[in-house]
């Protein structure tokens, strides 16, 4: 019996592993809300691949546990020696091969839409993001779209706005980001936008997105952006870049409209060009 015990042991562990994933959609462990125009393409691929892997996970693990139970060692019984099975080998080489080929073909459309530089939509808003250990510096041009975005990405302008960790855009805008890094590899990851792009030292890499939902309204009287608490869309670094990797957080602010964005931009530029110290006392000081 104690030999069969192993099959029970692994059977329980594997079932628990499978269940912990399978309950995902009901306990909030699923894909975050999608707010990107190309999000459905990415999600479709996720689900296709998840379907394949789930099917084969169940198939192989059930077979494995069954085999452990069925062929557990018995005292006095000698195990047979099996040389192999040519047809089976062919089968489990060709079937995964066919699946890989299918995935390779199925993703072409999404790749073309999202990553092909020639096919990127004409931008409404251009910005340049520089990653470094460990934060993001967003650079905004004087106007949402500079005359020559590519040249502007390489050569900063006098009236650019620099802002750490805050990515502002508006709903429905085709946003073009020129991604750079100052030091090591980083990866700009916006889970809600289904956008992930590595930043390579020495390269300027264009990425784009178009947000289908907004989470921010700029309040002109207080000069702050009011973020919808239920729609907190964070930016993360998806490439282990050193000790502070975990704190390369950023925040995505999608304004309701272009006007709202422009109001914010004007305010931010005014602050960045300030010639007087801020009048606003720090919040803690104000309490006393």
């Amino acid at each position, binding site marked *: *019996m104690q030999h069969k*015990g192993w099959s029970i042991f692994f059977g329980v562990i594997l079932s628990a592993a499978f269940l912990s994933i399978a309950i995902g959609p009901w306990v909030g462990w699923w894909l975050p809300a999608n707010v990107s125009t190309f999000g459905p393409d990415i999600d479709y691929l996720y689900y296709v691949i998840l379907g394949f892997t789930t099917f084969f996970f169940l198939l192989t693990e059930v077979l494995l546990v069954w085999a452990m139970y069925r062929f557990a060692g018995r005292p006095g019984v000698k195990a047979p020696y099996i040389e192999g099975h040519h047809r089976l080998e062919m089968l489990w080489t060709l079937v995964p091969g066919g699946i890989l080929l299918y995935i390779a073909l199925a993703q072409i459309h999404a790749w073309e839409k999202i990553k092909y530089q020639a096919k990127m939509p004409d931008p409404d808003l251009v910005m340049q993001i520089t990653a470094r250990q460990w934060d993001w510096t967003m650079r905004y041009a004087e106007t949402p779209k500079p005359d020559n975005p590519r040249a502007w990405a390489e050569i900063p302008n006098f009236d650019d706005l620099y802002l*750490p*960790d805050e990515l502002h855009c508006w709903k429905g805008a085709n946003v073009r980001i020129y991604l750079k890094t100052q030091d090591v590899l980083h990866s700009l990851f916006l889970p809600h936008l289904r956008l992930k792009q590595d930043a390579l030292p020495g390269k300027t890499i264009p990425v784009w997105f178009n947000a289908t939902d907004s989470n921010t309204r700029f309040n002109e009287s207080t000069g702050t952006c009011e973020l919808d608490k239920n729609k907190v869309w964070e930016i993360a670094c998806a490439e282990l870049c050193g000790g502070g990797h975990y704190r390369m957080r950023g*925040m995505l602010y999608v304004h309701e409209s272009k006007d709202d964005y422009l109001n914010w931009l004007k305010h931010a530029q005014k602050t960045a060009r300030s*010639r007087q*110290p801020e009048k606003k006392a720090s919040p803690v*000081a104000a309490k006393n």
Partner: protein
Amino acid sequence: MLDIIFPKTTKRLFSVRLKFSREAIRVSSAVSFTRRVRVLILAVPCLLPLLSGCEPDSYPAELSYPLRSDPIVTQPPGSTRWDTTAPGQLDVHIAHLSDPEIGGKTLDPAKLPAKERQELERALNEIFGTPAAPTVYLKDADPSLTDALKDLKLDPETLARGSIVYRRHCMHCHGVTGDGRGPTGAWVNPTPRDYRQGLFKFISTDVHVNNRKPRREDLRRTLERGIEGTSMSSFSLLQEEEKEALVSYVIHLSLRGECERYTMEPILDGSGLEGSVRDKVVELLGDLAQAWAQSNAKGIEPDPYPYKENDPEHLQASIRRGFQLFTDPRGSASCINCHVDFGRQAPFRYDKWGTLVRPANLTAGVYRGGRRPIDLYWRIRGGIDPSQMPRADFDDKTANKELWRNHADPYWDLVNFVQALPYPQMLPDDIRDSIYGSRQEKPAVAKR
């Protein structure tokens, strides 16, 4: 597996089951002791991931701040020898400074007599508490000190909160005592700020305050924006109260470090203390808290901008005057003497921490103290004391009569020039040519 570790329990479990259970009991009881241990050893790493999440947020309660052991730089060398110390060896580098060849002066805290060491440790622990329960507290403190500490928000609750956030985000570079010698600190260049000298670079404190310290908002700004061109990153997404608590905690560390340093110094250099060690610490705390509170209360208020905003003509004229002020080697500002070739060929020098620094390359468009005009104004008018950048002092309008006649405001002229300097298209043609070379040369280079 379970039956190997706990044969008796499994025996009980299985004994109610099928008929072959009897055989199982016999076999599992026969499992040797070494095999049981081996399986136990395998099981422990499986449990470790569960345990690893249980670490508490704050420092262990029994940990106290260690006394300073790295050399104290009392006088940085004047010469600008190229530093040959390997990276990650800050203390080796600083210990070298006292070589006669280099000419700096350092003191070694290891030479502190045991009695004084004990007294100092006791006094510091009494006032500043432990990393888990930091305080700035003095029994029977006089009211002026209490007020100063209140202004600086150094109450135990804020400090305890600050210590937790500091441990998570800052400690790995800035160290437990704020010495800038955390595990990752040695590997970044420039090295993380060592708060214990009470020196900070990017401050907006009024120039007439004695012993200028940063204001709370200065520390806060650095925290929120990070320092461009260094490894200090932005922490703008921390919660409001976390940032405020961090600022308080940095002040706490700086006060502790400075009290420690300036009590050690007279003992080590032989001049001796007048009273007891504790008296000295208390006296220092009083003075320093005053200096911090006074600094916090008064910032540099710039004169109103004398030109029309967004007027290119005014701006160009102002840039031109700023250029002259910047480049005149015998003028009132004479920035060019240190920022040689606008910083592109600036020579190295030692700052007050004993590390090598360089006057900024102002053509690069990277401003460590911030890129807003007001930031540049503060740098120019206030100077950067610890890295030995003097302040431009035109405040006395009678002594600088000519200057004020030629410039609507010489400070703003300098700011405008420094701001435009990295962007050739912003400069008047002749100035651009003198800084970046003539345009006509460019096609000739391109042809080759």
